[in-house]
């Protein structure tokens, strides 16, 4: 439409849900929730939640220049319209057309007499000889009016005395508007520049906002929020907001104004014609585009946010807080879980603590991560080998360390390799596949888990366990690599006939049985081309093995879908001394680069292993696995690495942050068993009041108390009563503040804990009974007594049990009042 009639928008001063759009006509809209029964079919959607219904249209007043609502309650919907021809018309909208409550439907207030209607005389005439561009009432004083005139000035008139005025020369004379929350603050604009005035110091603007490239069309203060000014420039899709919570006081010192500039795009790309702040809803506005598309829009405050240590997100928007807490629900795909959640769950399940059957730890970790599975099996085999080695040959410490140093180093130290050519079992044909043997190679095979300890290579137990776990393809491949083609076929057949078996396996078995070592046979030709279509990696490498030339097993060795463990075992059997280290080195570097835990098999728990683990931690952040894995290393070596210490510290810190203090303590115990150097020293000593010597031997009723006494030359049998005195000077120990017995007297029963239900858990009672005897005291008032007595006292009281002591012993430490989250 014509550029002269850009729609403008006005909120009703009384109905928070009504507004008027005026361009060539006046249209009254009511805003309501979208989709509700109230809004009719013709409602225009304003946003996702709200829609507008057209209530009335008034097209009686063409050539509108400006519009204003009648500010009083009655009559409602009375509007004053200023027209291009200089007339001001009062008109009404909606139901008031036929309502008697409106005394005059059309009142003309202009010097134009020919209309013949009510003509009023101006009450005041101000600012003669000057065209008024904008004006506003000053809310502080209802008799004052701020006028912006053509002659580049702003003037304040007092209606009680019209001759009195204060004025200032300025270019910024358009759109004067008073901040509703700070009534001395006024904004006006000129072209692209907004000036902010303080009426108490009217000589010059307090400050001006950064100039826009295009001329401004509207400037409006937010009605609900202090110091938020919205500005709009011509042909723009952006509303600029200026947040000026802290403007300098006109009489105060010189402070740089803190203005936060923001911009919003209420209707993405389309141009905004005008906007209006909602009179009551927080930061809400309705925006209208030149073609009358309306948009309900809320300006969000700057949101500040924070994560808690337990993955809850808190954010503050305006005056409100929102928390988004994680719900420990079941059934989430494990791959989608965040590592923080995973580590917490694993810590709860005591992941890493199974020292008897180390491989079981991967089950505790959820059992669905192939890398963790491989890692814990590797550690299991390493520890197993090292243990049996220990039992059998204690003197050979060299080999002991070799076990921990990974297959890479084992293979390097290999010597005395023998080459044999075996028959295919169950077939009399001689193969030309050379197989290599050495002591180190069979150690490597042990670490891969293919064989258990023993002089001969017997994979049968391994095959059986694989079959039991349902890994039939893998079992078949292992059997085949041990040149037992009959066993491989047998495994596949069993797999096919088993419950939920794969019938394809029979076909594969059939294909296998046709094996021939003739170079140019059809079988060979077909197998080498068709094997690529096999989806299962183990079936694929079986045929790859059968169709390859001896020594050229790249198709097997570089099949990345096959477990590293099996590829390495294969390499140890079929690669010669020149090929093997090269292949292992290459694979090790690959694993290190990728941070793949399967590579721990190759690197062992050495510096190489730490390097690999570092890239794993870099990638995943899983310090839990890193800590537990490195703790399994042979004492001293890897644990001294600063990186390992760093992971352990970080993991302990995580447990602390989650309040998994019991788990942290368990971890520390576990750690000190494997790394005795990490044992913390005693932190507190209790010394006797009289002689100053440590009384730590006597206060715990431990069996070694006798030794303690004999040290101090007290011969004779230590009787029970004597633990109540200092072992050094024989003076009695302090008394418990509650039972008034000397410390060291065992607590018979705690007062106030004789409830029936507490007796149910006997083991728990027993554990606690030891603790009840402990000597505790408040660090603030130094009163104390038996731990059990103290705890039961503070269950009901907040002040110290000693008379006239007002110390609130138990509340002194806020952290002490936190409950560990893993206690249940």
């Amino acid at each position: 439409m014509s550029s002269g009639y850009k729609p403008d928008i006005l909120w009703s001063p009384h109905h928070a849900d009504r507004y008027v759009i005026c361009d060539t006509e006046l249209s009254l809209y009511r805003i309501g929730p979208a989709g509700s029964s109230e809004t009719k079919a013709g409602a225009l959607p304003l946003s996702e939640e709200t829609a507008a219904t057209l209530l009335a249209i008034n097209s009686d007043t063409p050539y509108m220049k400006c519009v204003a609502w009648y500010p009083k309650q009655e009559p409602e919907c009375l509007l004053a319209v200023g027209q291009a021809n200089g007339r001001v018309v009062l008109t009404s909208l909606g139901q008031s057309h036929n309502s008697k409550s409106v005394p005059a439907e059309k009142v003309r207030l202009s010097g134009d007499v020919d209309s013949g209607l009510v003509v009023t005389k101006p009450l005041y005439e101000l600012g003669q000889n000057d065209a008024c561009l904008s004006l506003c009432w000053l809310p502080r004083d209802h008799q004052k009016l701020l006028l912006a005139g053509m002659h580049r000035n702003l003037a304040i008139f007092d209606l009680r005395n019209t001759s009195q005025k204060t004025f200032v020369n300025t270019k910024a004379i358009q759109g004067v508007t008073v901040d509703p929350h700070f009534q001395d603050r006024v904004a006006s604009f000129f072209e692209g520049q907004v000036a902010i005035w303080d009426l108490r110091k009217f000589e010059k603007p307090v400050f001006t906002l950064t100039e826009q490239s295009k001329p401004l069309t509207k400037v409006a203060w937010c009605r609900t929020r202090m110091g938020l000014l919205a500005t709009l420039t011509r042909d723009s899709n952006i509303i600029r907001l200026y947040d000026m919570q802290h403007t300098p006081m006109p009489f105060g010192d010189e402070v740089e104004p803190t203005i936060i500039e923001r911009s919003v795009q209420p209707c993405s790309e389309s141009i905004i014609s005008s906007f209006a702040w909602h009179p009551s809803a927080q930061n809400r506005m309705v925006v209208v585009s030149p073609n009358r598309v309306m948009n309900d829009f809320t300006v969000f405050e700057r949101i500040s946010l924070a994560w808690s240590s337990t993955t809850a997100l808190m954010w503050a928007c305006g005056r409100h807080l929102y928390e988004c807490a994680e719900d420990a629900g079941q059934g989430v795909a494990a791959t989608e879980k965040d590592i923080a959640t995973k580590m917490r769950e694993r810590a709860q399940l005591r992941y890493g603590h199974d020292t008897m059957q180390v491989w079981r730890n991967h089950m505790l970790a959820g059992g669905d991560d192939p890398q963790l599975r491989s890692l814990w099996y590797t550690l299991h085999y390493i520890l197993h080998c090292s243990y049996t080695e220990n039992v059998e040959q204690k003197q050979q410490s060299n080999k002991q360390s070799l076990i921990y140093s990974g297959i890479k180093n084992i293979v390097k130290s290999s010597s005395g390799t023998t080459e044999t050519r075996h028959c295919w079992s169950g077939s009399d044909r001689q193969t030309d596949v050379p197989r290599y043997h050495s002591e180190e190679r069979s150690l490597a095979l042990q670490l891969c888990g293919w064989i258990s300890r023993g002089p001969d290579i017997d994979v049968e137990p391994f095959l059986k366990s694989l079959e039991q776990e349902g890994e039939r393809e893998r079992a078949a491949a292992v059997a085949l690599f041990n040149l037992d083609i009959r066993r491989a076929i047998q495994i596949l057949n069993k797999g096919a006939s088993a419950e939920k078996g794969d019938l394809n396996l029979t076909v594969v078995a059939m294909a296998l049985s046709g094996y021939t070592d003739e170079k140019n046979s059809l079988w060979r030709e077909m197998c080498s081309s068709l094997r690529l279509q096999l989806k299962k990696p183990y079936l694929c490498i079986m045929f790859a093995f059968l169709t390859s030339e001896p020594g050229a097993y790249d198709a097997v060795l570089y099949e990345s879908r096959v477990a590293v463990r099996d590829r390495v075992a294969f390499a140890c059997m079929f690669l010669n001394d020149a090929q093997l280290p090269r292949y292992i080195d290459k694979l090790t570097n690959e694993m290190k680069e990728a941070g793949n835990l399967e590579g721990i098999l190759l690197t062992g728990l050495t510096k190489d292993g730490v390097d690999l683990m570092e890239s794993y931690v870099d990638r995943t952040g899983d310090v839990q696995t890193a800590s537990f894995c490195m703790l399994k290393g042979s004492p001293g070596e890897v644990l001294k690495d600063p990186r390992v210490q760093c992971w352990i510290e970080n993991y302990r810190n995580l447990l602390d942050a989650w309040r998994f203090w019991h788990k942290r303590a368990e971890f520390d115990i576990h750690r000190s068993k494997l790394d005795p150097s990490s044992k913390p020293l005693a932190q507190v000593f209790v010394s006797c009041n009289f002689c100053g010597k440590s009384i730590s031997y006597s206060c715990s009723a431990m069996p070694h108390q006798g030794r303690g006494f004999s040290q101090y030359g007290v011969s004779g049998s230590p009787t029970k009563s004597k633990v109540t005195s200092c072992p050094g000077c024989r003076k009695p120990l302090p008394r418990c503040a509650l039972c008034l017995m000397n410390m060291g007297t065992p607590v018979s029963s705690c007062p106030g804990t004789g409830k029936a239900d507490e007796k149910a858990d006997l083991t728990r009672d027993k554990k606690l009974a030891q603790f009840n005897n402990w000597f505790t005291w408040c660090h603030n008032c130094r009163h104390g007594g038996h731990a059990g007595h103290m705890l039961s006292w503070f269950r009901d009281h907040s002040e110290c049990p000693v008379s006239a002591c007002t110390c609130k012993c138990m509340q002194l430490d806020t952290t002490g009042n936190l409950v560990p989250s893993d206690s249940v």
Partner: protein
Amino acid sequence: MFVARSIAADHKDLIHDVSYDFHGRRMATCSSDQSMKVWDKGGNAEWNCTASWKTHSGSVWRVTWAHPEFGQVLASCSFDRTAIVWEEIVGESNDKQRGQSHWIKRTTLVDSRTSVTDVKFAPKHMGLMLTTCSADGVVRIYEAPDVMNLSQWSLQHEISSKLSCSCISWNPSSSRAHAPMIAVGSDDSNVTYGGKVQIYEYNEVTRKYAKAETLMTVTDAVHDIAFAPNLGRSFHVLAIATKDVRIFKLVPLRKDSSSSAPTKFEVQVLAQFDSHNSQVWRVSWNITSTLLASSGDDGCVRLWKANYMDNWKCTGILKGDGSPVSGQPGALSGILGSATAQRSFHLIWSKDYKVHCLPDLIFLSCLSDYLYILFL
């Protein structure tokens, strides 16, 4: 399922900052109403306001907790040009019985001549140290030599960044291989002044902080900055809230320990998102630095997560008022992480595991919501 819950904050003006303590059981908020509130999580996971007091004579911009091993200590900074250290005390009144705690002012740091825009405690392995930055471009590092006496703080370092500072972040790494490091962001909007993020590193030899790096590619005003929890990684990750969300990776290049020159870094941009459309106000990392939350002028909180290949993706959008982004009535209030999107899907399609990992998880959650309503 992650559902946003509204908490009646009862602040009289805008809340500028929220901060959790080490354990996530306490929370502090600060506001333009010049007051601060401390919240404790009750047994039923509800937040109870246990302290509310007027702190400054201007808007309180930021609030932060010290590590609990230094006691219950808070620091706040304000437009009134000061930073204040607060400590909770017990034992003198019966406040605790009424569920109220008492915080007293231990010290007021008045060195700044302009608004103090950010305040942060240093990582705990460095001792009890506090850093402030102010609009006049000065970063100040204070130390409490005696942790038992919080009324004495000595100004240890003053770093002049020459640009109006808006935010600071300590590198949380406790590894001895990493020297103490602090990143400073500036909200100066003049792009010609160059990089708006400066990184300072402590030099053992000179015992001073020296500039180690300026991120020259960040030329727009920076509103927030956050080092990711290091967790034993060999590199540092820095999230920056400017006109977009940016994630930088700083890989320290090996240097010989004898040299006194600052560490050189290989700086990589891991990700850059402009989906907030406009200014980004805040960024925050979760404890393992695997999730990043950001808030921006679009009024949304967005969650970002990296897969194992370091590809960062948006995994959740929450509207600032907790309402659903999709606009479906009665829909989920919010989805955190792709895990959750999956989860909500599972709740509805518990028997259908075929639809597992659609590329667009947000769409998925909206879709599931929508279906959820239809089936009801």
